């Protein structure tokens, strides 16, 4: 029953979020601000994680290929497939759910408990729209760019690992990256990214918007936002993979 209550309230909030903005220019300004807060602020951590993960995937693949029947360029191919299909869109989105989701939930939650949301409402502003819509739009615009950067940086990490090791030459690695490339796989990854961006921001917005109490509840809302968004990302990862790749 509790689950149904939350699902119902989530969709009611979404309807409120998608109401016509009071002033488009203000919302536009907010979207650019959120692109900076949500997206560009996360770029550093995404680059660091991607470069190391790309390197580790390349090393582990090389380590596991013992057979002389398996060509060495498989290292590049496997690294690319791992990064494009799963690591960048899903794992980076899970990391963003932690970083961005907790930030959104605690920001909106604090605004709720300090009556800032009431103040917006009294002024005649739709607080759900003003606070949540720019975040959703910003994440859906910037996350695909971040994920694309993650893919490139991850592949570069693999290249560094190959250049530093002896089992695969960088040229063979690059050849592997180019082998059997299907543009649809990148498209699939970006579709997942956009859906995950929506989940992260809307779930965190929901948790923050309905926070009641004080600092303790803001912390709880922040944790719930990360946990619920992560579960939904995993669930939708399966659904989208089944729909798009099977």
């Amino acid at each position, binding site marked *: 029953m509790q689950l149904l209550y939350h699902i119902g309230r989530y969709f009611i909030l979404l309807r409120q979020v998608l109401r016509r903005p*009071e*002033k488009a220019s*203000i919302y536009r300004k907010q979207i650019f601000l959120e692109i900076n807060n949500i997206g560009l602020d996360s770029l550093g951590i995404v680059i660091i994680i991607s470069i190391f993960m790309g390197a580790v995937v390349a090393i582990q693949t090389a380590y596991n290929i013992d057979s002389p029947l398996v060509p060495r360029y498989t290292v590049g191919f496997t690294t690319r497939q791992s990064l494009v299909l799963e690591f960048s869109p899903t794992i980076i989105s899970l990391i963003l759910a932690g970083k961005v989701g907790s930030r959104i939930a605690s920001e909106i939650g*604090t*605004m709720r408990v*300090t*009556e*800032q949301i*009431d*103040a917006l*409402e*009294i*002024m*005649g*502003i739709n607080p759900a729209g003003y606070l949540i819509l720019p975040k959703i739009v910003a994440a859906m615009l910037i996350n695909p760019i971040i994920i694309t950067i993650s893919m490139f940086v991850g592949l570069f990490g693999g290249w560094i690992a190959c250049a530093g090791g002896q089992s695969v030459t960088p040229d063979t690695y690059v050849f592997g990256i180019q082998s059997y490339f299907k543009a649809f796989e990148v498209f699939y990854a970006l579709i997942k990214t956009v859906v995950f961006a929506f989940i992260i921001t809307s779930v965190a917005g929901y948790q923050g918007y309905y926070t009641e109490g004080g600092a303790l509840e803001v912390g709880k809302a922040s944790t719930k936002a990360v946990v619920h968004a992560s579960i939904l990302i995993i669930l939708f990862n399966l659904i989208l993979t089944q729909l798009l790749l099977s």
Partner: protein
Amino acid sequence: MIEVANISKRFFDHQVISNISVLFERGKTNLIIGQSGSGKTVLMKCLVGLLQIDEGEIFYDERPLTKMGFTERKQLRQEIGMLFQGSALFDSMTVEENVMFPLSMFTEMPIEAQRERANFCLKRVNLTNSNKLFPSELSGGMKKRVAIARAISPQPKYLFCDEPNSGLDPKNSIVIDNLIREITQEYQITTVINTHDMNSVIEIGDKIAFIYNGKLWWEGDHDDILITENKEINDFIYSTKLMQKIKHLTTKS
């Protein structure tokens, strides 16, 4: 003018306010007083439409609140200014941006005109040279003054203040009280203040509504309240030693 006609509000089985009727006049500071938990905050939230009433009606200059649609209610809210207990300033904005915010949202004023109006309002609340500060850099009294400036910047017809003196020292409380009264008289606003501060009651109570157990128990002004024989209101007013001493001295003289 705000007319409250027989309004009631319950949360599940708990009747918080019942059958309250009261008139808040224009150009006067109307006070809602009562003990904590008496229902005065719920009453104020009902007045501004943050909570929906179960029965009765609230008329804003003869416009019924519960009959208003989404657009009408939104328009009405643009005529309302509200000062919250914790000031509710937007943390991510500077003082100037906070005051300019309602103007940027609902008017087509150019940015320079908005800034001019914000500076005027800040000057009106005796707050200059703080435009570029963030709320976290302000004292409690300064935050209240910025909140008042923000509330009056769109030239509201109705001003609601929820515990405007909470957390302030007596000197700053008087400054805020006088400021609210001056603004009310100067701009002929209908002001409703929710308080349990006796200084405010005596200082600016043009009209006082005492709420007891969710009911309107007593009505009067700052002179009547000191001479009333009503037991509940006397228990409330003279609950502190200071007020008891004042009463004792007044009776003696």
